[in-house]
């Protein structure tokens, strides 16, 4: 078991954003979390990656609890995320964005940096090469030197993906990677996600585009009003009566 | 250049040289002035500047020094020691002044002093009261203002008339305030009076009620107050509000009782003030005619009357330097320094003559100024006894 979420609950003020959610992510799979806007998907992501403290519940990764860890510590354990709203280092170039993503791959400490040790240069060259490879992987080779905030929306999302990949995740949490993309771009991203899984990285995905979700997921978890209402392979989910009701709405059901 | 032109060219060059030498002789004698013209103590600095300008104009009206006009190069030290040092550097190096007057506060004077030594330019100190100014072994320093000890000694002969049994201190938390508390405390102890509380206040503080409350609790009879006139006003007002009921004696000579009467009103009634100039009774000054003329000129220029107790120092400082230049016969720093040891003149305050102070071989000059006490009676400044 890679990631296990047990009875996860998050409250904002008096409002329950998550009301006791449990699900698991098996290694080497693509698992999708779906649900209408406001159903608690992003909240779950934030809780798993240490950006907010759950009211109750347990989150374990590789058998060890992630509770109370800072996001950077969680990243160091191989759990890396992207954000729902496009999130890049805006005034830096694409290549520099990815270089920052490679932070954990670097080893240079203060002393080494200040003394200007020779092996630093080698490390920098290695990291730069790695960054280049990642930029190529997401198909932004031609944008390498451009400032991230100047890129079109879809390409910014690709930068984000490259940054996350640079952190060498073993579990990658993607928050709506296809949002704001054209059909063609979405297809590219879907293919990319498959490639990523092919490299042995487990993927947990939040996505709205059903075609995309159903096309690439091994398992789908459906959240509705802060609870899991269904979990299973895509085909089963599409046929699940409660899911249909949640998606089409009560009115639709009655009509 | 062909040979044919050589002679006339030489002639022209010689003529030019001669002309420039003539102009050189007519060039004014520059004196640097460093004062706090902006910042918290700007008012005092500006009064000193006004006094200095009067001295300059008088001297120039009499034909200048050694036939040359006097020119003041005035710099603002922004009430900041760093700026005082910068200003000294600029005056010496860029403007090439052979002597300086400055720099009001002791911390500013102390900060400028290394520059004097570095370049060898004398400075007449007109206001600073810290003992260390003349004790540091800086042979370029000549002070006409009294250090706090001298001021305390000046008061000593009036002590019985004042009737001090038990005194408290309230002083601004600067070198000046701290120094005054020490000097007057020592003098009082020597004379057998008890010393109670010594309270300090920040330069920018406006509310001294807490200090006054503490002082009220000591049960003394006299409060020695050392700070700028603005704060004295506040302390007087707040003491009255708290019904402190003490004899209040201000030290330092910056108190300007006229301004206090204007600003503190009844709260100033009965207070004593140590001053170095009594513009209310110029005839009572050592040189009554000079003092009267200075007061008149000050008024004619529309300067505020209350500035006179500060402004006279500007006059005396410039007059001293001008006299030294006259004695030296040239405006060259070293010569002026030597001449400063020889000058003896009458200033608005009284006779000015320097005696040696500080470590042997590197003495600074210290003149012994006249010290007076006045009292506010019936809303007017009066001689107390």
């Amino acid at each position, binding site marked *: 078991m890679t990631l296990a979420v047990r009875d996860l609950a998050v409250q*904002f*003020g008096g409002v329950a954003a998550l009301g006791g959610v449990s699900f698991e992510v098996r290694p080497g799979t693509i698992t999708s979390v779906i649900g209408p806007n406001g159903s608690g998907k992003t909240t779950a992501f*934030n809780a798993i990656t240490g*950006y*907010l*403290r759950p009211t109750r519940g347990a989150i374990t990764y590789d058998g060890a609890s992630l509770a109370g860890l800072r996001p950077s510590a969680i990243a160091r354990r191989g759990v890396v995320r992207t954000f729902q709203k496009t999130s890049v280092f805006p005034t830096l170039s694409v290549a520099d964005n990815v270089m920052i993503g490679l932070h954990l791959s670097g080893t240079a400490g203060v002393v080494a940096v200040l003394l200007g040790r020779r092996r630093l240069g080698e490390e920098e060259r290695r990291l730069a090469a790695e960054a280049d490879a990642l930029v190529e992987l997401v198909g932004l080779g031609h944008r390498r030197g451009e400032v991230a905030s100047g890129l079109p929306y879809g390409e910014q999302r690709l930068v984000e993906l490259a940054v996350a990949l640079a952190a060498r995740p073993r579990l990658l949490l993607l928050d709506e990677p296809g949002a704001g993309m054209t059909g063609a771009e979405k297809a590219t991203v879907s293919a990319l996600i498959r490639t990523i899984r092919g490299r042995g990285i487990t993927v947990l995905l939040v996505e709205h585009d059903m075609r995309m979700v159903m096309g690439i997921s091994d398992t789908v978890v459906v959240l509705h009003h802060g609870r899991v209402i269904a979990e299973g392979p895509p085909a089963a989910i599409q046929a699940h009566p409660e899911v249909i009701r949640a998606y089409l709405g009560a009115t639709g059901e009655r009509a | 250049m062909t040979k044919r032109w050589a002679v006339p060219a030489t002639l022209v060059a010689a003529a030019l040289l001669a002309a420039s030498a003539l102009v050189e002789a007519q060039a004014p004698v520059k004196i640097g002035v460093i004062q706090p*013209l*902006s*910042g*918290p*103590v*700007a*008012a005092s*600095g*500006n009064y000193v500047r006004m006094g200095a300008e009067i001295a300059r104009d008088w001297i120039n009206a009499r034909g200048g020094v050694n036939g040359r006009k006097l020119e003041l190069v005035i710099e603002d030290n922004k009430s900041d020691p760093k700026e005082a040092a910068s200003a000294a550097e600029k005056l010496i190096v860029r403007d090439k002044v052979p002597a300086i007057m400055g720099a009001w506060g002791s911390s500013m004077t102390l900060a400028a002093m290394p520059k004097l030594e570095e370049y060898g330019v004398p400075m007449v100190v007109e206001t600073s009261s810290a003992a260390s100014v003349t004790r540091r072994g800086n042979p370029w320093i000549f002070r006409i203002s009294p250090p706090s000890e001298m001021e305390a000694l000046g008061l000593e002969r009036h002590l019985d008339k004042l009737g001090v049994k038990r005194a408290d201190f309230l002083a601004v*938390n600067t070198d000046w305030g701290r120094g005054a508390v020490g000097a007057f405390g020592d003098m009082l102890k020597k004379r057998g009076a008890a010393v109670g509380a010594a*309270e*300090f*206040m*920040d330069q*920018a*503080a*406006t*509310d*001294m*009620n*807490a*200090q006054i*409350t*503490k002082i009220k609790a000591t049960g003394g009879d006299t409060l020695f107050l050392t700070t700028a*006139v*603005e704060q004295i*006003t*506040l302390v007087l*007002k707040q003491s*009255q*509000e*708290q*019904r402190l009921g003490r004899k209040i004696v201000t030290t330092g000579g910056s108190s300007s009782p006229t301004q206090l009467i*204007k*600003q*503190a*009103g*009844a*709260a100033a009634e009965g207070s004593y003030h140590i001053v170095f100039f009594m513009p209310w009774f110029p005839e009572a000054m050592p040189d009554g005619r000079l003092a009267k003329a200075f007061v008149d000129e000050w008024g004619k220029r529309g300067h*505020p009357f209350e*500035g006179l107790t500060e402004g006279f120092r500007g006059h005396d400082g410039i007059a001293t330097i001008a006299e030294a230049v006259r004695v030296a016969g040239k405006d060259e720093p070293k010569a002026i320094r030597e001449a400063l040891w020889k000058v003896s003149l009458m200033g608005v305050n009284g006779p000015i003559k320097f005696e040696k102070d500080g470590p042997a071989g590197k003495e600074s000059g210290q003149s012994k100024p006249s010290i007076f006490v006045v009292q506010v009676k019936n809303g007017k400044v009066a001689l107390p006894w």
Partner: protein
Amino acid sequence: MNGLVLGGTYALLGIGLTLIFGLMNVVNFAHGEFYTLGAYAAFATLAGLGGGFVAAVLGAIVCGALLGGLTERVLLRPLRGESIDTTMLVMIGVWIAMQNAELLVWGGVAKSIPHPFPTEPLVLGPVAIAPLRLFVMALAAGLIAASYLLIHRTKLGRAMRATFQDAETAALMGVKIARIHTVTFAFGSGLAAAAGALLGPVFLAYPSMGDLAALKAFSVVILGGLGNLPGATLGGLLLGIAEELGAGYVSSGYRDAVGFVIIIVVLLFRPSGLFARQERIG
């Protein structure tokens, strides 16, 4: 008792600053200068024009508000969207320029502002207080109350609060955000000027008087929480009293340290201010 007099004016300063700071995210270093301006305006009214004390305070408010509004309109509006450091630098420039302009106009000599009250203190049981201070306290209280009414009972105040809470939605309601910014800045500056006009006669007016006042205002804002009016009011009173006690019981030299220590302690242990509601996380 003195703590209350000071506290009342601190509160005025704090309310003005908290509005500007909270709404526009401008670290207003020139806030103290509007305080100074108020004191000089009061001086001009009382000594020059021979007006009454109330007229002087009103005059100060008008001066402060006009110049504040102008500052915002001319200097800050074109820089909207620039980083907080840039606007801060602008306000530093305004601070330096205003202070030295005041020096130029009024000279460095501190001005005592005449006032029509007797200097003999009123004795009420164990408490002795000068009538002026009593009047200042009452006027400060009145101005604080008036600010509350303006903010809570008028259409303009409602729009200001709405903008403060959610500028974009306020714009959707037809509120002209830029105008609200100008008005807020003018209002805040007016209050600072009022504080100056009130404390000026108690103390003195001189060009650098605003520096300390600005610092106090910042302490008050932190104490009360950003953009929190009741917080600023209570914070002002509390700071006034704490200073009085601190100076009385600890050491007068460390009087002004009270404000600093309060800021540090409050920020380290309760960053949203003493009176702020717990903010929603995330």
